[in-house]
């Protein structure tokens, strides 16, 4: 008997029991559908988490003066004056793996605007700082390299600082605020970022050209640290190695000398992220596996009932010349048709559900092509696997007994 005839017989038999066939398929439909939806949501949230973490600056690198230790004695980083503006220039000009770099000098003090004052600290940085820390301007503009060269007294304020210095709600851009008696012109406002996961107010910030802070506020010739961002999160280690190499050369350190600076990245953050997303994927795969298994057992159950119910038909088919393997093939094809049709409907259902979730709950959803292909393969295998036992049972029936079966 050829495959086409077998297909015809199987479709015919399924057509005789449409509701049952559909209910059996439902197991597979829900199984495959949930696999696709879950993986789409899982992948979507993975992307969201990734975006959020990189918002926090997962590719950020911090360079602090001072080694871990020197001569066995741990040193306070403040006491170190090993990083110079020249190091900044060298890194900026020579590093391939960093997207942006900014020096950092910090001074605490009182900010005054007329009758209002507020204690804050001013960060002296370069224009790249905004990109590195994922900060955005709400209004005004960032200072330029030219402002840095001329050490202009300009600053950019965060929302918390503005709320304290300008309680009447007036626009601070263009106004002059005093920091430690030095007048700074406000040229921009940072977009509010709220509190970070550690509970720090990210809007309590004032930034100004680093040269201004160094020369006019602190009167120092060194920088307290550097912020850089790697071109991509996964390139962070290359960037660290590159920075280390350039700084060692810059500081003319011999091979046997320890680093007189420390480079740190947000590696813990990215490690945490990949652990989380791997766990999520594993969890979803488990759910997917279980639902497909349940669907498969549903198929086995129904095929088993079907074989028992159609014992007489099997007996008849055998009496008119069907061989065991014809019967086996017939029932196997029936279960494969159920599972594959269920699979197709499940794929459509899953894609639909994923899109619905996206529209209704505004969740980031990414439908995975591999999940469609995979669940399709899996449900075909499920059909064969769970259809095998009932089909084998059917094919081994004794035609005499089967014909007499009531």
């Amino acid at each position, binding site marked *: *008997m*050829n495959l086409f*005839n077998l297909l015809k*017989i199987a479709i*015919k038999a399924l057509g*005789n029991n449409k509701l049952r066939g559909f209910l059996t398929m439902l197991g597979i439909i829900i199984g495959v559908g949930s696999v696709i939806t879950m993986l789409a949501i899982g992948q979507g949230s993975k992307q969201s988490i990734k975006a959020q973490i990189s918002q926090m600056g997962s590719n950020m690198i911090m360079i602090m003066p001072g080694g871990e230790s020197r001569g066995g004695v741990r040193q306070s980083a403040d006491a170190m004056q090993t990083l110079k503006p020249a190091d900044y220039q060298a890194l900026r000009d020579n590093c391939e793996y960093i997207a942006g770099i900014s020096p950092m000098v910090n001074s605490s003090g009182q900010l005054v605007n007329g009758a209002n004052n507020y204690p804050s600290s001013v960060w002296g940085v370069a224009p790249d700082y905004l990109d590195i820390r994922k900060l955005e301007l709400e209004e005004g503009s960032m200072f330029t390299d030219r402002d840095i060269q001329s050490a202009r007294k300009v600053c950019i304020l965060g929302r918390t600082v503005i709320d304290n210095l300008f309680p009447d709600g007036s626009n601070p851009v263009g106004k002059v605020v005093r920091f430690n008696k030095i007048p700074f012109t406000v040229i921009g406002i940072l977009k509010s970022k709220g509190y970070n996961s550690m509970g720090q107010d990210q809007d309590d910030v004032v930034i100004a050209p680093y040269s201004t802070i160094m020369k006019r506020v602190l009167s120092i010739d060194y920088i307290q640290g550097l912020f850089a961002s790697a071109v991509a999160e996964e390139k962070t280690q290359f960037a660290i190695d590159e920075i280390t190499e350039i700084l060692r050369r810059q500081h003319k350190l011999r091979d046997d000398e320890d680093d007189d600076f420390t480079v740190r990245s947000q590696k813990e953050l990215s490690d945490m992220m990949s652990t989380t997303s791997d766990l999520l994927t594993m969890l979803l795969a488990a759910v997917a596996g279980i639902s497909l298994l349940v669907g498969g057992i549903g198929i086995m159950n129904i095929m088993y009932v079907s074989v028992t119910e159609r014992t*007489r*038909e099997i*007996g*008849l*088919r*055998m*009496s*008119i*010349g*069907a*061989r*065991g*393997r*014809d019967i086996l093939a017939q029932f196997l094809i029936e279960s494969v048709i159920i599972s594959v049709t269920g699979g197709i409907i499940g794929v459509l259902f899953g894609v639909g559900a994923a899109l619905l979730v996206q529209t209704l709950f505004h969740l980031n959803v990414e439908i995975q092509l591999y999940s469609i292909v995979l669940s399709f393969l899996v449900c075909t295998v499920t059909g064969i696997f769970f259809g095998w036992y009932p089909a084998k049972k059917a094919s081994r029936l004794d*035609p*005499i007994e089967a*014909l007499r079966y009531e």
Partner: protein
Amino acid sequence: MAKEIIRLDNIRRTFIVGGEEVHALRGVSFAIHEGEFVTIMGTSGSGKSTLLNILGCLDTPTSGEYYLDGVAVRTMGRNDRAMLRNRKIGFVFQNYNLLAKTTALENVELPLLYNSAVSARERARRAEEALVLVGLKERLYHKSNQMSGGQMQRVAIARALVNDPVLLLADEATGNLDTRTSYSILVLFQELFARGRTIIFVTHNPEIAEFSSRNIVLRDGRIISDEVNPNIRSAKEVFDALPNDDN
């Protein structure tokens, strides 16, 4: 002398039931030639069902030899016997055994589906021919549940004929039908007999023997009589003489 279709040589069939041997057939021998209409009769327990299963290649004898159309069946495997049934035997059952919710044509096509040498077109043509032969020209596309018992049995007979078997094997083929319909089916069998078909009709109804050309009676696994019927009654005459309830 016509061709020998069936030859049984000292057929024995023993079953083991609950540790005890049951001798269903205790040495049965006979030959049936082409064009015979043989009834095999016997009460229940006489071994006629066992004999029918062996004749139909559904079962094999414990000892003795069975030749169907010159082929020794006893030593054949399951698959070879399935093939043999498909090509050489047409079964007609008491309860028709049609596929549910399936048209007459599809039911009749069924044996040919298991014969890959027959194309789809050929299959449909032969099924239609067989249905026309049994008088169901107008019922090709009726489903099995839309037909009367007599019509269903006709479909079953058409199904048995569609592979042009050497032997038509009927098992109480009129057992489920009322008298009038039974005779109409007997008329059909006699028509097939007249066309030269070899028919074996297994029954416990002694009346049917009057319409066949030869009658074999079994009792306790042995043949107790094997007689040629010199005066075959015409089923058609009996049928025509029956009062017609429909008018």
